[in-house]
């Protein structure tokens, strides 16, 4: 690895800019407003992100992108996580942008401009597991007919395009025989039903009933879709890990602030050693996870084809750290932390959904173990 895990000046500037923008345009109060209004994300914010160039963070300049790379994408995701900014950033600007790297610039330009919102329709069960994809894509002439159900599709309602993984050969559980399609979300036979999840984000169930797809819709090679989506998935997992690091930092920041201000038994509660040690332990966990996040971005930028282990370490660590940060957050706040009026619950809910999306702790732990030879 060439790059250092310490952020470069450019990365520090990017972070400051992102933080400045988000504190203006998307503080946690904005998320609450969306929630209260029943909005899973704010299209206006998405447009602004596009104007900031965030949608093009992974796109080549020819396609209107800034090509800043995965570490930069992680910095943006982390900052969004810290204020719970809801947007299709990971689905579109990270995963779709990575999956379509090879595609024509006009298609990428749609992502850069913010006009295209992508959803990745992959899981079919309650646990993330790409190889278990069973949805059928029947060959008929030189077209395909997609039939089956996809669940837990992030940004599935807002999306105007869908990347969907379906089986053109082989049987459920086999890594081979899958094909990745890039289709219009309005295509006939595709029904989308929004699901209300605790994080109040956009998660939908997609039902495909003989949805037509042509050879032009295929991304990568037929029957080799897992390869076509592999790096996109790793990119998404790394960005999600970064978001979860932001969620941890956001919850931790609220908690330490509260520990310094709240008084009880005539003392600031932050002076109780038992709470101090738990806070210090949490700080250590966050620092270690931050290293794993920085490393995942570095490996994706420098050696994307061998990023599985780095990405899985990041996602496993981020999942566990966020869980600890939000539980300590609620517990140390006491009753107030339990009220909807207070923001801590939002962090806890996002951490839970983020723990499941794109692979839970066990999924990523297994990938690490495999890579380490046991």
């Amino acid at each position, binding site marked *: 690895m060439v790059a250092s895990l310490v952020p470069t000046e450019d990365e520090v500037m990017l972070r400051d800019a992102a933080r400045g923008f988000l504190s203006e345009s998307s503080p946690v109060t904005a998320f609450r407003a969306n929630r209260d209004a029943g909005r899973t994300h704010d299209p206006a914010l998405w447009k602004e992100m596009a104007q900031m160039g965030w949608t093009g963070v992974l796109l080549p300049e020819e396609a209107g992108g800034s090509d800043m790379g995965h570490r930069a994408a992680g910095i943006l995701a982390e900052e969004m996580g810290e204020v719970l900014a809801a947007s299709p950033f990971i689905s579109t600007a990270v995963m779709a942008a990575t999956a379509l790297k090879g595609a024509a610039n006009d298609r990428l330009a749609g992502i850069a401009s913010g006009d295209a919102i992508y959803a990745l329709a992959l*899981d079919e*069960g*309650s*646990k*993330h597991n790409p190889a278990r994809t069973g949805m059928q894509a029947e060959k008929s002439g030189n077209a395909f007919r997609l039939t089956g159900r996809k*669940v*837990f599709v992030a940004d599935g309602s807002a999306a105007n395009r869908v990347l969907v993984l379906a089986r053109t050969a082989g049987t459920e559980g086999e890594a081979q025989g899958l094909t990745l399609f890039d289709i219009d979300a309005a295509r006939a036979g595709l029904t989308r039903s929004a*699901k*209300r*999840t*605790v*994080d109040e984000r956009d*998660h939908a169930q997609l039902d495909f009933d003989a949805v037509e797809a042509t050879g032009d819709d295929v991304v990568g090679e037929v029957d080799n879709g897992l390869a076509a989506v592999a790096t996109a998935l790793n990119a998404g997992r790394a960005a999600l890990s970064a978001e979860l690091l932001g969620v941890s930092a956001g919850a931790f920041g609220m908690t330490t602030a509260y520990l310094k201000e*709240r008084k*009880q*038994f005539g003392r600031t509660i932050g002076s*109780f050693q*038992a*709470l101090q040690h738990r806070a210090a332990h949490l700080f250590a966990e966050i620092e270690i996870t931050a290293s794993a996040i920085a490393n995942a971005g570095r490996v994706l930028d420098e050696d994307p084809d061998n990023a599985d282990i780095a990405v899985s370490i990041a996602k496993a660590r981020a999942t566990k750290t966020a*869980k600890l940060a939000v*539980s300590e957050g*609620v*517990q140390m706040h*006491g*009753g107030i*932390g*339990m*009220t*909807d*009026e207070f923001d*801590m*619950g939002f962090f*806890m*809910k996002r951490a*839970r*959904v983020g*723990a*499941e*999306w794109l692979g*839970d*702790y*066990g*999924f990523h*732990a*297994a990938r690490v173990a495999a890579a380490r030879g046991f």
Partner: protein
Amino acid sequence: MSFFSDDLDQFRVEVAGFIAEKCPQKLKDMPASDRTICWGGKRFNFSCDEQRIWMEEAAKVGLTAPRWPVEYGGAGLSRAQEKVFREEMAKSDAPSPLESFGLWMLGPALLAFGTHEQKLKYLPDITNGRIRWCQGYSEPGAGSDLANVQTKADDKGDHWIVNGQKIWTSYADKADWIFALIRTDRDAPKHKGISFMLIDMEADGVSTKPIKLISGSSPFCETFFDDVTVPKTDDEGNSRIVGELNRGWDVAKHLLTHEREMIGGGGSGAAGGILGGRSLGAFIDTLDDTLMEDPVIRAETMELEIDTLAMGMTMERYKDMAKQGGVGHASAMLKYSGTELNKRRYEILMSITGSEGVEWDGEHGTLAPEWLRTKANSIEGGTSEVMLDILSKRVLELPSA
């Protein structure tokens, strides 16, 4: 004198007959739910007429408060008789005729600290479900520091003027009366200036506001006192204060230990909620069959099951110890371990249900809100930190700083 014979076998026959005869079949057939809980009180909407009938019939013979003395509206049963009664109730599917904070908390407080006249005045209204009580302890600024009571009563000779705010007052919006900790002496040391006061929720200046939790709506309220007039004695000359003036902390402490043991129970055995009595294994059978192939989930689940069963044995052991002379401050262990275990159980339930579990109202119904609600288990009724303080100082007798 009781309505039932002292002879246990005879009693079993009598009480079984009473339940069979007086509890309407419709109630016995109703699946247990919030709607089957009878809270009583002036403004209570009975889910059906049978619910009211069963409450009234049980109240007539004191079975809404089995162990309370007959003269105060109870059935005056011995512990052995109560056990038999519970057994027969369980057999019969009859729901509890009446539940309330009056039965759980104020009653025990009055029986321990009240005057004979106070008992005569307040207890029967509790047992027959006429008056519904709520509890007013916590305050916004206080948190775990329960004795930090700011709600104050100014002495106006024959009455008090009460001002302040209570929080976490369950069902305050549905209650007729509140028993509350009120500061009646601001110059005395923190614990010595509090009184255990009884206040009519219909009095001018009392208002309530429900609290929404991260898990959704809740029975909790904020309760505000704005220049509320509380007569020092009622028309019959009964004090509106339980126990001595400025000695309310003793009463509160007495009830807290009691409450603690109740809440600790949450951690033991097969919980209600999403599991609804099902074993973890039975629940897992309803899920993706490859789930338990994940060693992380499997290991966590096995450990949870081991600790849950061991906690159940501990609840049993402590109950028996309590009967044989009490467990004292060690009950804080039940509260601590039971609630932490229940939080862990729900974390694992969320983990094994994966993306289905995170829906507000999907496959697994109320799992998500239940999970979020458990986070309060280790806060309400004394935080885990307070329990650990109690254990280290009172049980292990470690020195204070």
